[in-house]
């Protein structure tokens, strides 16, 4: 009997049970409160769940598969780069958590686009953002499915298609049936499994390698650059700094990360979400990245670096514990997919539908929510059949696009009264053009070796300020809703 498969199937069974249980709860909610329950879990989530939703949503296959893969390929330089993301819960919840929480309650916002709608009162912004968010999140979701399928296939011996089905269909069940309620409960279970899996993998790898000293000596003999903070100049400080901005300051623009800001119960939950999130992301990031680079000293010739985590799980820990590691890695990926699915669905089935058809019934929105979520997941699974090889760069591309579109309109929109819809539209369009050019025909736009998102975000913020200043200010009603005393 393969204990890795048995323990993974047990974990999968629990998630399906959560989906069915959550479906019963959501179905009992009156139709008038359905959206609030489906997208924001009744706005009653505590600190640990908020911490896990944000941390689990942001720490994707990029952390659990590509993180150790990059440290395997480029040594300790990528431990440094990955460590920049440790405070993403702080950088999301602290800057906008309170103001989003206040406004969300004032205007009864349950989706992140509801906040944009209230702030800019512009149909064009909703349509544009729905388009860009969907365009960038779908391939991002696909990479998550690819990562999960590769891990399952590697560890269980099943084919890629069967592994893809096993890893993705369960998400479909608990997201489509349970919405945010199902996702939040599943995330709690998954958070425990992820953390256990990371600890088991790290300890197993260090023991198997004979300790840090031995591993470092082997790495030095393979290539001394593995011990360098810049991989011998391949990743200079400016490049590292631009990625620190992308996963640090700019993270406030990530729409699926805003779920936590929309769902927390009170500021006590917000504070716990901030520091508990930091502890969790520190554990996940550091332990897996260290395992990846130490893994290089054990097996120097893996054809696909992203396969180092499953390789370690298979070779350095006992079979049954390997199942926990497998479940942990897949769980980390599933939490991201779930958060993305909620965002895309809310954008299309709630916001876009209401913009195009203002008199749509609550029953229709409910039906559209489930159909849209099922369709989005199916499309992402379809993309995953293409099996892209370098998922880390697709992930950075998607994150860069998302923050370029949303950073200025979110941050300045929440803190600068003078910002208006024209500034937001110009900022989004300018940012997308610059980001597109920087990634394709004009790579030299990426100044001083920075990631293309760096110039795109900075310049789009400048455009937001210039265009807003040159056009009429927003109405007094908006000012009162967002910053006024009631």
């Amino acid at each position, binding site marked *: 009997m393969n204990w890795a498969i048995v323990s993974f199937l047990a974990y999968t069974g629990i998630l399906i049970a959560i989906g069915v249980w959550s479906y019963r709860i959501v179905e009992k909610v009156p139709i008038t409160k359905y959206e609030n329950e489906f997208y924001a879990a009744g706005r009653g989530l505590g600190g640990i769940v908020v911490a896990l939703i944000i941390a689990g949503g942001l720490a994707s296959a990029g952390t659990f598969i590509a993180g150790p893969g990059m440290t395997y390929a480029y040594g*300790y330089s990528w431990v440094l780069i990955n460590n920049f993301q440790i405070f993403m819960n702080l950088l999301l919840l602290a800057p906008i958590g309170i103001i989003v929480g206040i406004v969300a309650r004032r205007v009864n916002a349950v989706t992140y686009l509801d906040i944009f709608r209230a702030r800019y009162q512009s149909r064009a912004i909703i349509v544009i953002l729905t388009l860009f968010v969907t365009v960038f999140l779908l391939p991002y979701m696909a990479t998550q499915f690819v990562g999960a399928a590769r891990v399952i296939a590697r560890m269980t011996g099943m084919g890629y298609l069967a592994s893809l089905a096993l890893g993705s269909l369960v998400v479909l069940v608990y997201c489509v049936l349970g919405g945010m309620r199902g996702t939040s409960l599943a995330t709690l279970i998954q958070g425990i499994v992820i953390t256990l899996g990371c600890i088991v993998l790290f300890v197993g790898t260090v023991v198997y390698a004979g300790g840090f000293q031995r591993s470092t000596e082997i790495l030095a003999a393979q290539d001394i650059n593995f011990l360098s903070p810049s991989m011998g100049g391949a990743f200079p400080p400016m490049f590292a700094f631009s990625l620190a901005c992308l996963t640090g300051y700019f993270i406030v623009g990530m729409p699926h990360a805003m779920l936590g800001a929309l769902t927390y119960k009170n500021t006590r939950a917000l504070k716990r979400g901030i520091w508990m999130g930091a502890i969790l992301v520190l554990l996940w990031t550091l332990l897996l990245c260290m395992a990846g680079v130490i893994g290089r000293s054990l097996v120097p010739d893996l054809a696909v670096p992203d396969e180092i985590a499953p390789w370690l799980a298979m070779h350095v820990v006992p079979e049954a514990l390997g199942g926990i590691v497998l479940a942990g890695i897949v769980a980390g990926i599933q939490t991201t997919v779930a958060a993305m699915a909620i965002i895309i669905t809310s954008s299309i089935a709630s916001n876009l539908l209401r913009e195009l058809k203002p008199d749509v019934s609550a029953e229709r929105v409910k039906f559209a929510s489930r159909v849209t979520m099922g369709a989005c997941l199916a499309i992402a699974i379809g993309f995953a059949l293409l099996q892209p090889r370098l998922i880390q760069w697709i992930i950075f591309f998607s994150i860069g696009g998302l923050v370029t579109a949303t950073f200025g309109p979110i941050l300045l929109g929440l803190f600068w009264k003078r910002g208006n819809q024209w500034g937001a539209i110009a900022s989004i369009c300018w940012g997308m053009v610059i980001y597109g050019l920087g990634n394709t025909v004009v790579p030299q736009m990426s100044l001083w070796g920075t990631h293309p998102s760096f110039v795109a975000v900075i310049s789009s913020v400048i455009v937001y300020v210039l265009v807003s200043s040159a056009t009429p200010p927003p109405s007094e009603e908006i000012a009162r809703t967002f910053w006024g005393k009631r």
Partner: protein
Amino acid sequence: MKFDEDPRIRVSRKILALAWLFFSLYLAAIMGLSFNVGTEPYLWGLPRWVAIGNIIVPVVFVLLLIFVAERFIPDVPMTEDTGDTEEER
């Protein structure tokens, strides 16, 4: 009509500044130490910059964050209509 700013917005602005200051200090510490400490002599069998800049610094800052979040982020009521305060929960 006179515009009265909600005092919680001022709190929100201060927390934004606090979060970015905290992250900037972390960034300065982790990058400064990583690029300046050097590789040898090893510490705990790891390159010196890894042990100091990428293990000790993140752990210290995470512990510091618990104090900063609990000490400097005030409990504020999230709704104004119901008298909903943190103390009631």
